[in-house]
């Protein structure tokens, strides 16, 4: 039962932890870039907020999994919730690192700004997979 509750709150908590770390990494990089550039400050700060989406996905998954906790539903909630949470957490951290690299290179060559964001967007895609399929599978967990 305890694992069931962990699975219910897991996507939200783990997603938030990942977002904190990811936004912090990208935010630190953005802060450094502000020192070295004259313009484009807004977009650096904008990129550094990209890993926050995983927290939102976590909240939605948590609500989708929210149901009466019974011995029948707990294993399913634990498995889907914890695994989805871990996927969201790691994707947020690595997205933060990708964003930091994007900031670093687009500081030197602003014209490649869009292209440099591609790795971060791909990481976001995997977070979306984890999110969508957690929603799909949550329908199968006994109420």
């Amino acid at each position, binding site marked *: 039962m305890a694992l069931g509750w962990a699975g219910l709150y897991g996507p939200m908590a783990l997603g938030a932890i990942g977002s904190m770390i990811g936004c912090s*990494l*990208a935010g*630190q*990089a*953005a*802060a*450094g*870039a502000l*020192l*070295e550039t004259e313009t484009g400050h807004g977009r650096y700060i904008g990129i550094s907020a990209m890993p926050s989406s995983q927290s939102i996905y976590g909240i939605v998954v948590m609500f989708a999994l929210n149901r009466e906790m019974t011995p029948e539903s707990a294993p399913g909630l634990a498995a889907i919730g914890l695994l989805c949470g871990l996927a969201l957490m790691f994707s947020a951290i690595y997205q933060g*690192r990708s964003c*930091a*690299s994007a*900031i*670093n290179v687009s*500081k*030197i060559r602003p014209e490649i700004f869009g292209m440099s964001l591609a790795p971060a967007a791909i990481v976001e895609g995997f977070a979306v997979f984890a999110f969508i399929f957690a929603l799909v599978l949550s329908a199968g967990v006994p109420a």
Partner: protein
Amino acid sequence: MSAYYTLVTSLPWLPEKMQRCRDLPISRIALDRRLSLLADEDKQRLQWAEALYHRFASRISLQPDQDWVKEWQTLCLKIDSAPLHECILLRLEMQTLLAALRYRQRDRTQAEHFRGIGRWTQRIQQHWQEPLFGLEGAIPYLEEMGKLFQQGLSGDLQTFMDDYLWQDLLRVERSEHFTFETVACFVLRFGLAEQRLQSDADAALTYFATLSDDLMQHSGIERQLEQMFEDFS
């Protein structure tokens, strides 16, 4: 191991090719201010790395080679980062090879008196009489170095060596992700660029003219010369 996201992105850009570096993008004072973001132990490691890498530029000393080698070996042991250690070793080995070529050119020199640092010192002593110490197959840059040395093109040789080191540092800098090594390699490249720009012939001439003007004014020689001209006329 600390990650330096803010510091790395706050560092200015240095070109991929050293020849394209016409001026320094930031002063040393401003760079040092940014490097204050480093942790204390990393600051110390950077100081050691710089001392090893750029020692030759300020080496005006009568200290025997043997003492220098001991000092370098002690400092080298303190560099615990493998990629940075490799970069510094390349620099020291390059300098050892150049020193060997120069030392051999002198009269009455013997292999056993030669001192150097790195993997090749013993091999240099064993193959002292061979043009490139039998190392041309093992060291990719040695053939070009030897050619430039034989032709007496000291300036070109220095440029070639600096270029090679620059590329090596750039490779390590790019392969690391916001780590101390990224920062250290940048600072070492900055040092190479600083030395190169300081050794510019035109800049040296301008500096010499300014210095001599200052000296003339301060020592009163100029006034004395003017007085002498007036007396003669």
